[in-house]
């Protein structure tokens, strides 16, 4: 074999082995375990912390108010839908307090008149004209409206 071909061949071998070495070092261990992705990513995403614990988590302390809610029109509502995520509060009930919505605008997010809201699905009220001086919760108990 002529010398210039030998040199070219050696250069080729070096480039290919460098590529293979880099590929081996840079590819994560679990890549290709289940498909063309890092297999460990599935477990990493699955272990994210949960923030909304559900009504079952609320009822152990707030049983009377949950029972009251479940007997009224708001029975389908989750506690955390209005009060916010409860995981921290359940762990540290003294320090981590939840949100107590009390404004007319908050109730209006569901109950203000909008032609797009199905009439049968929800009671609607003109929040500008209906006793504008009062907060809704003065007259309506949100847990038993």
């Amino acid at each position, binding site marked *: 074999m002529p010398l210039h071909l030998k040199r070219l061949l050696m250069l080729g071998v070096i480039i290919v082995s460098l590529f293979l070495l880099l590929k081996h070092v840079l590819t994560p261990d679990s890549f290709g375990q289940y498909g063309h*992705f*890092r297999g460990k990513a599935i477990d990493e995403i*699955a272990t994210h912390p949960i923030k909304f614990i559900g009504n079952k988590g609320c009822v152990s302390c707030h049983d009377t108010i949950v029972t009251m809610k479940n007997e009224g029109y708001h029975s389908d509502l989750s506690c955390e839908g209005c009060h916010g995520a409860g995981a921290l509060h359940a762990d540290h009930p003294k320090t981590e307090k939840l949100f107590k919505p009390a404004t007319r605008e908050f109730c209006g*997010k569901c109950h203000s008149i909008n032609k797009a809201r199905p009439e049968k699905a929800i009671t609607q009220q003109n929040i500008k004209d209906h006793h504008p001086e009062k907060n809704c919760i003065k007259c309506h108990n949100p847990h038993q409206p």
Partner: protein
Amino acid sequence: MTERKTSLSRRNFFKNAGIAAGTLVAASTLPAFDTVLYAAVKRNTKGPWYGIAIDIEKCIGCGTCAKTCKIENDVPQEPFFFRSWVEQYTIKKDGSIKVVSPNGGIDGFTQTIPDEEIEKTFFVPKMCNHCAKSPCVQVCPVGATFETEEGVVLVDEKYCIGCKYCIQACPYGCRYFHPDKHVVDKCTLCFHRIKKGMNPACMDNCPTKARMSGDLNDPESAISKFIRTRNVYVLKPHLNTGSKLYYNALNQEVR
């Protein structure tokens, strides 16, 4: 000259014709390849195959789904970053269509068009369709986004290089670029919750139970029954993405 004669001999002609006819007959017994059917075929024989159903007739546009999603998944609070949001479609009597989504619906909707001008108006909650043939997964150059065996499309935030190609590829606009992590982020169908047997946060907190997710493999699951008994439709079916987000009572105007 002699060579050419042999290659065109009667014997060779019959031989080749026989092979061709045999192949045609054999191929005709195979099932037809239909791309649309392929996308709808249920996968994962070992466990659940997740789908989503949203009932537009029940949605009241309160935006609780969008709000709880942001809290549960640490999505930046500023507008324009959404994994889940709500749009209000208004079809006016003059035929024009107006779509609004102020802050994804989180602060609620105010009707801006007077009743007299409205032909029809409704809310459309949107989120990742968790497609069975996701265009976003197909374009990722590094394999940072993938479909799990349960049919959930996820992003590996440690492996994403932030090229944003998938954001362009998603026909439903369901991906965004995370401003702090500098990677692409999207709905995981609350993978961390469904793996523990819970429902996604948006579904648990929906006050009218307008949305549900569940196992499409199980014919007795609530979602399978919902899809069987309602007039369900997916978004942009002509794109053949294998979308698994089924809407009840979806207007053709919704894109």
